[in-house]
């Protein structure tokens, strides 16, 4: 808990730094705060954790592992933001503070042990994001993204809240352990309210993770928001939402599998196909990444469908791999867009000649997203497929495999543009922060891909 308190105080401190115009101190202070959060989490690594504060939060291995992942990815995003917002706005401190607030919400979502906490966490996370999506006040697309995200988000929160209310009506408690006891003790005579509650929760959470058919906000919001905010949304927020989703369903609703698994099965397949096929026809790299994030949500639903002991690890590795690759992809996109003014695939033509390192990093990120061996993405996909096959959903995996093959077409498009389409262009100047972020992300991607033993068996 001290980690979350530290983080909240850090965000307020950053706001004050903004008040006193200490712009240079923003990034170092934020990073320092994140590092101390990490240290506090490290101390908390405890297999025998018990729920704290009347069962509100539980910092077990699951929660700590996902929290650390969220904090690390946020640190990478913050490193990328050096000089990103200064150009257009004087309110940089707000940006840092809002990201930190949003992160705090995300950390609550991954460690909730009470549905009220889940709701509060999701709200803290989302409200900050509504503002962040529209942080470019004079940019029309950014405003549109913020409004859409806000309306859709508020709507989905309604579903979520209603679902929680029904759950309470059925079981008489918000506490995960109590709900679980209720479900386990009456597996055949559960109140119909509970079924309604589960369905509404699925709707609400599917909105948050961007799974079809509740994905319609994703492309426009991802496309319209500033690239860095999109990065944060598609990595940290997605990680937290999935971790929360899995935690809720794995700890409470496993005995009722027969009821909700068919629903999620259909959603996963629809999500995969919609995400992949729409990504195929995109001309903009950024929009392609938005659709690809939908299809990745489809793969991640696999873990919830499997709802087994290996699911948590599978999700951890998968979102870790996906987030690292996304950070690289969006980071390179920022640089390319800054010099060419375009986020289309053509903007990447001939990049390999002038910026071999940048191209190599992006190529590895794309291979990881496509799930090619020796990258983290492959290990993630492998674990996902293993966990669903353990439940004998062979047809689902065959469909997933077809989608993985479709994915090659659009992930390789940018590789083709960079390496095989010669074009004279200027060299892109890459500053030290970007180099650090790309190097770290790529090294971890490869390390996870070649020798993942250090992360499997963690939870």
């Amino acid at each position, binding site marked *: 808990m001290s980690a979350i308190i530290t983080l909240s105080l850090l965000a307020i401190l950053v706001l004050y730094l903004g008040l006193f115009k200490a712009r240079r101190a923003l990034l170092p202070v934020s990073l320092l705060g994140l590092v101390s959060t990490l240290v506090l989490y490290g101390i908390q690594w405890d297999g025998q954790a018990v729920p704290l504060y009347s069962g509100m939060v539980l910092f077990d291995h699951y929660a700590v592992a996902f929290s650390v992942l969220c904090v690390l990815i946020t640190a990478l995003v913050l490193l990328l933001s050096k000089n990103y917002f200064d150009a257009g706005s004087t309110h940089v401190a707000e940006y840092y503070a809002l990201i930190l607030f949003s992160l705090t919400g995300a950390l609550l979502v991954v460690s909730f042990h009470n549905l009220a906490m889940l709701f509060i966490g999701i709200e803290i996370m989302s409200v900050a994001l509504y503002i962040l999506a529209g942080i470019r006040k004079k940019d029309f697309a950014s405003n549109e993204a913020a409004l859409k995200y806000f309306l859709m988000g508020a709507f989905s929160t309604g579903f979520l809240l209603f679902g929680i209310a029904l759950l309470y009506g059925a079981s008489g408690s918000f506490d995960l352990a109590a709900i679980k006891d209720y479900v386990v003790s009456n597996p055949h005579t559960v109140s119909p309210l509970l079924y309604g509650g589960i369905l509404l929760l699925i709707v609400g959470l599917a909105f948050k993770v961007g799974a079809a058919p509740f994905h319609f906000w994703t492309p426009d919001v991802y496309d319209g928001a500033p690239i860095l905010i999109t990065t944060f949304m598609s990595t940290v927020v997605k990680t937290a939402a999935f971790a929360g989703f899995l935690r809720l369903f794995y700890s409470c609703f496993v005995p009722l599998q027969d009821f909700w698994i068919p629903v999620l099965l259909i959603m996963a397949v629809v999500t995969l196909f919609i995400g992949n096929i729409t990504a195929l026809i995109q001309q903009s790299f950024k929009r392609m990444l938005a659709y690809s994030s939908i299809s990745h949500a489809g793969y991640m639903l696999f873990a919830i469908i499997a709802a087994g002991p290996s699911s948590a690890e599978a999700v951890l590795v998968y979102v870790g791999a996906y987030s690292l690759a996304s950070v690289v992809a969006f980071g390179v996109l920022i640089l390319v867009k800054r010099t060419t003014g375009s986020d289309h695939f053509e903007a990447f033509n001939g990049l390999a000649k002038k910026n071999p390192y940048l191209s190599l990093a992006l190529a590895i990120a794309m*291979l990881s997203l496509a799930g*090619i*061996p*020796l990258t983290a993405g*492959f290990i993630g996909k*492998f674990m996902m497929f*293993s966990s669903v096959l353990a439940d004998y959903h062979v047809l689902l995996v065959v469909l997933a*495999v*077809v989608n993985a093959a479709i994915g090659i077409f659009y992930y390789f498009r940018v590789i083709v543009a960079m390496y095989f389409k010669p074009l004279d262009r200027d060299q892109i100047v890459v500053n030290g922060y970007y180099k650090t972020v790309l190097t770290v992300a790529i090294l971890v991607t490869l390390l996870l891909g070649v020798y993942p*033993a250090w992360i499997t068996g963690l939870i």
Partner: protein
Amino acid sequence: MDNLFILLLLPVLGAIVLAFVNQVKSARQFALAVSLVSLGLTIPFLLNFVPDASIQFEQQFAWIPALGIHFHIGIDGISLPLVLLTNGLIPLIILSAFSYDYKGGFYALILFMQAGLLLVFTALDAFAFYVGWEIALIPIYFICALWGGENRIRVNLKFFVYTFLGSLLMLIAIIYLHLQVPSGDYELTSFYQLTLDSGTQRWVFWAFFLAFAIKMPIFPFHTWQPDTYTEAPTAGTMLLAGIMLKMGVYGVIRWLIPIAPLGFAAYGQLALILCVIGVVYASIIAFKQQDVKRLVAYSSIAHVGLIGAGVFAWNVQGLQGAMIQMINHGISVVGLFFVLDIVARRLGTREMQAMGGIAKTAPVLAIVFLVIVMGAVGLPLTNGFVGEFLLLMGVYHYGIWYAVFGGLTLILGAVYMLRMYQKVMLGDSNAQTSNFLDINRTEWLVLTVIVVLVIGIGIYPKPLLHISEAAVTELVEKVNLINN
């Protein structure tokens, strides 16, 4: 000296260093040196190998223990010839690329692919096998798409997606089998010991078969092959045809049939028929080709079809034929593509009509080419004869009509190959071919090695056959025991 892990690691290290070499000359020398060292490191394996059915030089490291995955590698009589083939051909392929100004990156990709190929041929753990299988694919995609011909982007994307889809199906089967293994690992031996029901084995058979059939390729999964071979740079074509398609054949022998013997009993005949259809079909199409590279690409489908038929006949003669013919085909096809590259580079075209009369100005090349062509069509006392004879004998034991149609490859092969030789080398010379320069020293070196191998294996194939005999016999008996 017979540390298998080092043999696999060396090309990777070489590749990493080469990726930073931007000078053409030093890149060449370093790449050649690395490939020669790995060839040298192969010799102790050959010397210390005991030709029985056991697995030797085994090494095992924990890789992802939480998931039951080990990095388990080893060599037996079936993998050793292919390891030899890989490490023997890579220096020749690197040498043959010296005519072009490739920088370090090109050779790095070749060496990286070599590591993937070696892992495929030595893996005893299904996960390691799959990883090697995919690692071999990435570099060849980049080699073909970076340095290939005009349509390289479209053609290679098709190739990549096609093979990737096939291998993912195999991955499903591998995970499924792993979940059935009581000890929860991915070991080849654990997979062998599984006794699954016939229905399961049938779909497992298809999942593996598609991956291997696309790689080889077997008719009707060959549609990517002619385009990819034609558009690839010559070194890429050599890698694809000389070594990579053997991954498919090896997979069938090592993984597909022993793991799913009941599936094989149900569909083996169908697979054999597809192979034989491929032989006839590709031979006829090869006959119509004007582009020499495309002609050899189709001839490769025909040859591999016969190899496949020999494997699916599943008897000792057929398998032994397949083992030795994989080596022979690798040697011959590298020779053929190299000669055609020499010719095409000097004339600036691959069309047969623009050639002719080269033998007059380049007698050495003409003689060497003749020997290689003879090897490819299977003339007695050349390497091709031994393999094709054994293959046909194996198929004959399976069914006489299959052998009759499969045997057409000998006749049809002779027809289109000799026709090509005649049009390229003989006849009247034209304005361009009358100034044709004979081969230079590097080319001479590569071609001499190939010619020596063609004739050497043709006259005395026994040592090679001896390596695989015991392992093949045991494998055949093991599967036949289940199926009878």
